């Protein structure tokens, strides 16, 4: 289960990885968790380039998700 051996385009895989790290996983609720507002912006940027999967590579290579 390594990122490096994922077929189907590493760029798409990396976007999925970031998307799932931010949009999935265990979510703690309540006041003990500090939110990271800036990450939401990364998430939004990634979601914008996610739509046409075949175009993700060129977008990432231009650094548009930073």
């Amino acid at each position, binding site marked *: 289960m390594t990122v490096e051996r994922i077929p189907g385009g590493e760029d798409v895989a990396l976007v999925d990885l970031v998307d799932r790290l931010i949009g*999935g996983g265990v979510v703690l609720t309540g006041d003990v968790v500090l939110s990271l507002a800036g990450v939401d912006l990364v998430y939004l940027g990634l979601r914008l380039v996610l739509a046409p999967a075949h175009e993700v590579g060129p977008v990432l290579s231009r650094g548009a998700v930073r």
Partner: protein
Amino acid sequence: MIVLHAVVARDAAAVAPELRHHDAGQVSVLYEEVADPPGRDSEDVVEHGRRVVQLAEHVPLLPMRYGTTVPDLERLRAVAEERAEAWSRRLAELAGRCELVVHLELSPVPAPVAVSGRDYLKARIEDVRRHDRAVDDARMLVGRWTQEVRLLVDGRRLAVLLRREDADHARAALESWGRIRDDLEVTVTGPWPPFSFCEEVERP
């Protein structure tokens, strides 16, 4: 500040010697103490993700959502004690499972040069139906291997939970299906830790 990485079975905490762990019930929470909050660039998230993916190669785990932090050990203890039983239960359910993400991208249908509002709406409805049929077809195709399938929030991707040993079979079936569909592009990524199947933990 404490950054939470993942929840693993209590006897599996040694798999990540570079991380600290807090034991609660039958689980351990893997964490690290840091001076600054987790980074906000995509590279920071990817680096964290690679570590989580590597851990998941060795032990079943529940990944924490990126950026999950607690202020101190006292709060970590409180959080872990409150949720240890639910985490343990979900860990057992997900043991040996992984996640594939399936992108379904339909070729756009060219719009007529001049259309009425009614025709436009009919075309939009047909687009939605085409997409729904593609989703249903993908669900049926991988149904024999999957425990759960979820449509992700963008509506264009499916998260598929399945046994790790079935991942290659499911991927091959999906990619083969994509090759014979000239109106559909299918891209599969993973296997990932079960990122999309952890939220039950917080349900009462």
